[in-house]
């Protein structure tokens, strides 16, 4: 009798549970998964919008074209460079921000607000702010650097490949470090105070304390931040769109930006979809690692 009752309860739980998550699940599958599957199917077709009548199945041709083109490896390298540079800068500044928030008791509200503003404003506006600041003639960066005599003549930041990348990285860092600061700050607060006190009694210096206590305790959060930022670097779009448009000469085009150019610049849905599929696979790999990390964290 009891068993029968509990069985009915599980069935009811399943019905109630699924009916409550159904709208969310349905939306994510229909608007999320289905289009991705269609994109994968496009990636096996010759599908160019300017030549709509000739759409046909081509197998792996798009992938072969992509992987054998120099451009693919160039934008892949750009993506890696962008990811590494932005991550290093964001982690360093993010850490400083978190430590400041942790030590400043009075200003914590002010810092928190200031830190949230870059996070909250549209990426395209940040892109515009930075492209104006880095403008060769009117830009304030050139003028400030000239005032302190770090440079003699205006630098044309955005027309040179590596300096354009630097501008994009800085703009992204400005937008992303607040989030990292907040995560690390949240992590810092979970470290018990007496651990530090014990270390102080044992005579540990500030540097030793940082490397022996602070960093190891933040391992979980730092791993999550790294994964988030890897995915962020793969997914970045509006900042590149607004500052350089992928230029000069593709030097700031990432995988995703190149996919966008294939899709909506060349109207080559086959090739663009193949690149989008590769991006999706990369993101999926990161997501699975993320889920594994969260599990071991429990």
């Amino acid at each position: 009798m009891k068993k029968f009752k509990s069985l009915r309860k599980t069935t009811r739980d399943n019905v109630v549970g699924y009916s409550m998550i159904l709208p969310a699940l349905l939306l994510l599958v229909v608007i999320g998964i289905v289009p991705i599957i269609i994109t994968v199917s496009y990636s096996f077709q010759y599908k160019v919008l300017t030549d709509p009548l000739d759409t046909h199945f081509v197998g792996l041709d798009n992938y072969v074209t992509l992987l054998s083109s120099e451009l693919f490896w160039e934008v892949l390298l750009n993506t890696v460079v962008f990811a590494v540079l932005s991550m290093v800068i964001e982690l360093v500044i993010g850490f400083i921000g978190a430590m400041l928030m942790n030590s400043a008791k009075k200003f914590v509200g002010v810092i928190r607000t200031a830190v949230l503003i870059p996070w909250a404003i549209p990426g395209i506006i940040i892109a515009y702010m930075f492209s104006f600041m880095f403008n060769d003639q009117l830009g304030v960066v050139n003028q400030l650097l000239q005032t302190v005599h770090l440079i003699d003549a205006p630098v044309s930041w955005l027309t040179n490949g590596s300096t354009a990348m630097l501008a994009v990285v800085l703009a992204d860092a400005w937008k992303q470090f607040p989030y990292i600061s907040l995560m690390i700050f949240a992590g810092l607060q979970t470290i018990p105070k007496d651990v530090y006190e014990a270390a102080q009694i044992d005579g540990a210096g500030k540097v030793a304390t940082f490397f022996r206590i602070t960093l190891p305790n933040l391992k979980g959060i730092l791993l999550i931040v790294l994964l988030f930022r890897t995915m962020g670097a793969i997914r970045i779009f509006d900042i590149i769109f607004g500052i350089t448009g992928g230029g000069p000469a593709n030097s700031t085009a990432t995988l995703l930006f190149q996919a966008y150019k294939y899709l909506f610049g060349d109207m080559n849905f086959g090739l663009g979809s193949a690149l989008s599929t590769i991006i999706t696979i990369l993101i999926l790999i990161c997501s699975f690692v993320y889920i594994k990390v969260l599990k071991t964290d429990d």
Partner: protein
Amino acid sequence: MQKKNRIAKILGIIGIAIFLVVIVFPFYWLIITSVKDPADISLIPTELWPSRFSGAFYESVFVEHHLMTYVVNSVIVAVGTMIVTIVIAFPAAYAFSRINFKFKKAVKNFILVANMFPIIAIVTPMFIIFKNMHLVNTYAGLIIPSVIITLPMSIWTLIAFIDTLPYELEESAMIDGCSKIQAIFRTVLPLSAPGIFTTAIIAFITAWNEFMFALILVTKDAMRTVPIAISLFPGQYTVPWGDMSAASVVATIPIVIVVLIFQKKIVSGLTSGAVKG
């Protein structure tokens, strides 16, 4: 010892000051540029503090660029996304937090993965489907894709919040003769108000800032949202920096006000959903 402490303290304050300047300067520059006189924009050396102020750029963006149309579009899309997100996310979060159904863990992980969906792999088929369904250039056609961006994070934030509420409350409400649904509406829903509020704010900001869907799924100028409209200001040969600054300030002010008022809630929402498994 005391002297050393004082030096450390001063260094700390200087550190905070530099940090704040780095954060605030780009934003300061945006505002200052927007209130400069059009003739002063191209002054070399540039004025770090303008010698005269002017509202010319603001007049230009509202009169010539019809900025108000785009602001209204952005408000409708962001508020719409926020409402739809909460209505769908709350019951889902409740189920994940309170009910044991089959494959719960797997579905929860799926939602986490959905948070990472690359929009580039979604937007092309969506454009074709929406075109056939006549959803291109409509508010619904902008709200629906925005919801799938805000939904996963919102569900996770709400789960973390509902998890903190004691289950006994619903039980005692049910003992008092409430049905399960009534118990949810009378106890969990009101107690979740702060969590819902936080989630709603973050969803609003995310939708307000959404770029790629809004860029591709809208082809008619009158339906554009503010970020897209601003990105299309530059002409072929000239970039109207002043106009873009003024429009950016207008697009940013609602967000900054929201951040100023609700900073504590936003921080708790941002960290809870991501840190907790």
